[in-house]
């Protein structure tokens, strides 16, 4: 025994010298990415008795890392991304509409960053907890084909996913009250927590919506409004979306399923570890993951199965970087679908100036929504949920002057002083039409600090997204006017590439291996022991924030994975 391990050590030492990976002890499953998807899968597999290694490129932050720094967070990152990735070691290549390419850093909006830390986006998100609507899962059947879009139905329905939505709502923790949302799919269980008391803005918008015969309701949020899961309730501060929660009232995977997974005893979390490639054998199966640890040492973690949960940009990047003799175009990429259909949301809405103060300094701000314009909009495909915006910090308001108000000088300052407390924003995430040419590739030249080829983003939004955005913006302005706005002006998305924190679509799920990457259980079509479980698998992205759907899919896929495991052990 001792001799074997000494031999092992010697081999590892010589491997290190020639730049080869040190081989670690084999486990059942290695999961890349401890975000919304990966955290849940880790816990489900560990509970089922599998040995699990969870690899995360970022750190494990806690509530005490909440700096409330309004220039350095995940929403405003001008001085850096508070929860990763850092500007020093990471980069991407962005190809714009004219074919001009440039290297972008994480703090630049064009990087399309998602936080890199334990919990991923769920550590610092705004925490809206949306179930997609029934029609969101069958967009192609509902609307027919859309020119120059790969619009399709999901290989599963709302009803298939419903039990897992419920599981996510109760395990991670959701508050809110969507009783008044007549457009929602049936739920098997109510939400576990009530909504927060309404803010002033909420009350103003609610009566206005009712007068317009809309159906306003309290947004479901992954947020404690009463003590739940051993943590306290929201204290309603100003620093919500983009920030860590100082009182740990936001519910993410970092303070629910990941600690639970670790408490079981057979799951190991390795932070600040950057995956380089997935290793394959001559039988066409994956055998583990190569990664650099926090000191830059290369390891190989052998496993019976691999789960990629690294976000819709980083997951395809890892698959495409995992080329081998049997997979010369990268894993899962036999038909060139990995990295395709990158989408996010085209946010559209309006700002309105009110006659008296509406700002009451009560976070999180976003609280009231209506789903009247998600579907059935004349002549348009899809739509968006409309809701009030998250609480606005002064630095955000500074760049929002309406037409006619200069963006600098005495008049701008005067506008800030007069209207900071009297402005309401209503907006919504427009459901985007997937575009085959909007994509993630790996760059042939640029590498990151670990020497790994970086993600190369290219493409543009579908023109129909901008039509829907215009329509939604008009509806938002109408709501604000009914609420008493004396002046409104539109908020519209740009034409460029989408993605951002709602990134999705790049490893589409489907029944046909020729037009998708994974099956309905997130299993890569031609590699039985490889799974992609995150927003990448979304066929379409709904007119909603995607976190709860990523979580529900993770529960569903993990359940299927465990069942398969019990039969075959995934050993080829």
């Amino acid at each position, binding site marked *: 025994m001792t001799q074997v391990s000494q031999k092992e050590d010697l081999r590892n030492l010589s491997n290190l010298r020639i730049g080869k990976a040190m081989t670690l002890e084999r486990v059942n499953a290695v999961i890349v990415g401890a975000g919304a998807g990966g955290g849940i899968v880790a816990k489900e597999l560990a509970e089922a008795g599998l040995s699990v290694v969870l690899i995360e490129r970022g750190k494990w932050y806690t509530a005490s890392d909440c700096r409330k720094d309004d220039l350095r967070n995940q929403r405003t990152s001008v*001085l850096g991304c508070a929860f990763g990735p850092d500007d020093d070691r990471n980069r991407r290549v962005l190809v714009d509409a004219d074919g001009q390419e440039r290297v972008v850093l994480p703090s630049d909006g064009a990087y399309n960053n998602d936080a890199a830390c334990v919990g991923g986006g769920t550590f610092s998100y705004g925490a809206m907890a949306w179930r997609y609507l029934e029609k969101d899962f069958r967009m192609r059947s509902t609307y027919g084909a859309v020119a120059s879009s790969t619009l399709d139905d999901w290989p599963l329905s709302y009803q298939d996913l419903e039990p897992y939505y419920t599981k996510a709502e109760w395990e991670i923790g959701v508050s809110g009250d969507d009783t008044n949302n007549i457009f929602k799919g049936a739920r098997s269980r109510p939400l576990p927590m009530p909504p927060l008391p309404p803010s002033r803005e909420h009350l103003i918008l609610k009566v206005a919506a009712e007068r317009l015969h809309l159906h306003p309701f309290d947004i479901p949020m992954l947020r404690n409004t009463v003590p739940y899961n051993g943590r306290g309730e929201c204290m309603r501060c100003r620093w919500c979306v983009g920030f860590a929660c100082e009182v740990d009232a936001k519910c993410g995977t970092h303070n629910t399923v990941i600690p639970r997974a670790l408490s079981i005893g057979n799951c190991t979390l390795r932070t600040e570890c950057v995956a380089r490639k997935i290793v394959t054998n001559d039988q066409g199966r994956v055998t583990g993951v190569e990664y650099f640890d926090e000191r830059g040492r290369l390891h190989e973690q052998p496993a019976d199965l691999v789960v990629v949960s690294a976000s819709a940009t980083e997951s395809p990047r890892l698959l495409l970087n995992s080329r081998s003799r049997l997979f010369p175009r990268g894993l899962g990429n036999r038909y060139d679908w990995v990295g395709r259909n990158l989408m996010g949301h085209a946010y559209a809405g309006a700002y309105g100036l009110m006659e008296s103060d509406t700002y009451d300094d009560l976070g999180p701000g976003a609280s009231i929504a209506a789903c009247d314009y998600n579907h059935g909009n004349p002549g348009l495909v899809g739509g968006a949920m409309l809701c009030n915006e998250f609480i606005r910090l*002064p630095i955000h308001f500074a760049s929002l002057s309406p037409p006619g108000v200069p963006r600098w000088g005495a008049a*701008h300052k005067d506008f800030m002083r007069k209207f*900071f407390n009297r402005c309401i924003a209503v907006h919504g995430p427009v459901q985007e039409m997937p575009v085959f040419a909007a994509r993630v590739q790996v760059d042939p030249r640029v590498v990151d600090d670990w020497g790994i080829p970086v993600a190369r983003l290219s493409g543009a939004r579908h023109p129909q997204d901008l039509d829907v955005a215009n329509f939604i913006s008009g509806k938002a302005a109408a709501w604000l006017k009914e609420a008493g706005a004396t002046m409104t002006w539109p908020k519209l998305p740009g034409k460029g590439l989408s993605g951002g924190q709602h990134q999705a679509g790049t490893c589409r799920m489907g029944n046909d291996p020729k037009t998708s990457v994974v099956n309905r259980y997130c299993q890569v079509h031609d590699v039985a022991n490889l799974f992609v479980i995150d927003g990448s698998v979304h066929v379409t992205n709904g007119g909603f924030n995607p976190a709860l759907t990523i979580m529900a899919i993770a529960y569903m896929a993990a359940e299927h994975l465990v069942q398969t495991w019990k039969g075959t052990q995934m050993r080829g």
Partner: protein
Amino acid sequence: MQITAVATAAGPMAACLGPGNPWRCLSEDEGRTLEAICERIIPADQDPGAAWAGVVTFVDRQLMGPYRRLRKTYRLGIAGTNATGLAMFGKPFVALTSQQQDAVLQAMDKGQARGECWKQVSAKSFFDLVVGHTMQGFYGDPRHGGNRERASWKMLRLPYPPVRGRLPEKASTDDAGFAERRPA
């Protein structure tokens, strides 16, 4: 003003740039010109302006950190602004009247400022950069060197720290008479 300058000059970084210079990265002249530009972007009125609030301190500090890649842009842009002032009114930027300064900045904003100086960095892109950074320094968090004494937040009537239960000021919502919708 003088007291601030002397106090800051005592810092070890400032010593590199000569005694009396309050900045870490910018030269004294550059700092003074930039301060004049920022003050036109957010001028003092009944509330403090960019100069008093320390926007240049903010920019200067960031040029030693996250904005270090913009040092050259600032050097060129500040020189360009002075050159444009000279071309339009025969004086460097700080020596112009407020109206003349506004005219120079408007020319830059509209991309109408011409000259050798703007070949490497366009006047428009430099001005956009300074507007953005001035807003950050004035409306952003005081910990980064600007927004002195939370001047802008006071102007916007924002309490700090706005943590319920720890608030020295009375919470601004107490008078709203909300029905508490607590669960039974």
